[in-house]
């Protein structure tokens, strides 16, 4: 649907963004206080000999530019380097953590989208009942957006796991363990998405084309399904980039809170531990996700809205 030139252009900017993200994080960590050697040496082994050995082992005696170029070179070969702290290759570390995070974020996205869609569809319309529910829903949405996500998590845990014992407290085994974290992460999304969708539906239902469709004898439900929904999806789709950010960022908190494995945890640990190779890999990964999502977004946008297909 995008011309070939468009694809090349997109790939080009995507790569540029990736490179810039990698470089920016490299520079950022370079100017950060503290010395890489300190992190590698660890507690209680700080003797000059050990320092020297470690500097040599990690090639930290080379000029920064050389290290940076070497880093890029390795990246080009798909080698993400070795974690300073985890005694393993970064690629391997991430590989094991992607699945749980993907599970969590996808489940949360599903929760968010489903809840939002159901609420929006049920409350969009003209009847008095619908209007009553709409105001109720908008209050619920507002609260869902305004409660810090970790508070939602804490409350969910306290109620459904500690007290009622319906769901396991944590871990990544089985679908039951996914319910609470996915809810904690998905509720704020449902809040925002619900507002956007409902606003979109309401706006679409006021448009002249909606009146025209009604004048053709369409039922309200058919009107929503065939006309309004797609219009409401357009602003929702533009928010998808934001959702990705929220999901990935929220994954950090959710994973820490629920004791789930995943990239968020790894990122958090790497950042606090200044585990540079892991941090950079996480940055790259999330840049990659962003670039991918925004490309998909473009396609979705085009699929929904014929006007921008040119």
């Amino acid at each position: 649907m995008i011309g070939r030139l468009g694809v090349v252009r997109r790939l080009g900017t995507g790569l540029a963004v990736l490179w810039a993200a990698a470089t920016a994080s490299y520079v950022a960590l370079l100017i950060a206080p503290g010395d890489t050697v300190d992190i590698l040496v660890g507690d209680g082994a700080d003797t000059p000999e050990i320092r020297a050995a470690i500097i040599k082992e990690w090639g930290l005696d080379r000029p920064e530019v050389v290290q940076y170029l070497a880093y890029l070179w390795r990246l080009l070969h798909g080698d993400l380097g070795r974690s300073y702290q985890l005694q393993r290759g970064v690629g391997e570390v991430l590989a094991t953590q992607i699945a749980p995070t993907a599970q969590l974020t996808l489940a949360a996205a599903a929760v968010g989208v489903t809840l939002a869609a159901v609420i929006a569809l049920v409350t969009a319309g003209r009847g008095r009942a619908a209007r009553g529910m709409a105001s109720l829903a908008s209050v619920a949405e507002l609260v869902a957006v305004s409660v810090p996500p970790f508070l939602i998590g804490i409350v969910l845990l306290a109620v459904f796991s500690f007290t009622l014992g319906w769901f396991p407290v944590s871990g990544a085994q089985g679908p039951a363990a996914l319910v609470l974290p996915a809810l904690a992460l998905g509720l704020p999304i449902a809040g925002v998405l619900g507002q956007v969708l409902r606003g979109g539906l309401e706006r679409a239902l006021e448009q002249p084309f909606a009146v025209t469709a009604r004048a053709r004898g369409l039922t309200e439900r058919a009107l929503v399904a065939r006309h309004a929904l797609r219009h409401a999806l357009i602003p929702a789709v533009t928010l998808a980039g934001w959702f990705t950010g929220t999901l990935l960022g929220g994954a950090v908190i959710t994973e820490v809170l629920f004791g789930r494995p995943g990239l968020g945890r790894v990122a958090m640990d790497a950042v606090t531990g200044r585990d540079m190779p892991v941090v950079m890999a996480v940055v790259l990964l999330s840049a990659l996700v962003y670039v991918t999502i925004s490309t998909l977004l473009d396609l979705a946008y085009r699929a929904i809205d014929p006007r921008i297909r040119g």
Partner: protein
Amino acid sequence: MAAPRLPIAPGLLLPSAFLVLLALAVAAPALLTGADPLAADPLSALAPPGAEHWFGSDHLGRDVLSRVVYGARHSISIGVAATVLAVTSGVLLGLAAGLSPTWLDEALARAFDVLSTLPELLLALLVVAITGPGTGNVIFAIAVAQIPNYARVIRAQTFVVRHSGYVEQAVTFGRPRLAITAGHVLPNVLGPIPVLATIGLGQAVIASSGLSFLGMGPQPPAAEWGAMLSEARNYLRVAWWEALFPGLAITLTVVCLTVVGRRLQRRFEGRTP
């Protein structure tokens, strides 16, 4: 013609009242509570809400009410400072991009992209990791993460205004470029900012509480809502009040800011037909 406008709409009354209270807590917390938020009394730790401690006491025997009240100053000033920083930088960058030649605009737009490739929280985390925890750094981190939001809007708005009828008209009056930029473009691109900033302020409060939760917020013993919540989660079973009140404070603040922000937005949108 128009009905006399109430100074404040009924649906706005409660949120506004709360925000006023909040402003009071920020400006003069001592008016709202007599207790010292930092005074620890280990012997009366984890006392439930009662006559002595209206909101109970925390794990170090500090008065939760006074910590929540004094916490407003921290949490809100972090939010406000971050928002002000983000808005100022965002407006300047967005305006610069919108007015620049295409190549520079493109470069700036990509820079915003790079900044947004990292989820807000992760970016803030990274910034804090580099600069270290602490109030100033949290402000900086949240601001950096929010800059692209504002910059993008301003950039788009600048495009619109730049090609608008009134700017063109100003050209036909023979007004210099700088005068047009200062007199028409800048004031008009700022239109959506109050709304965005109000809602952004709420989001900044949430973001800062998230960072505090992860142990990257202001330093102890500072009363800060997110940090209070983070500590309180360990005492959830024995002292629900320690988590409830700061949690409520954050939520109410964000709800009220959002309600007011939306109202502003409706005003703003209603104004420009």
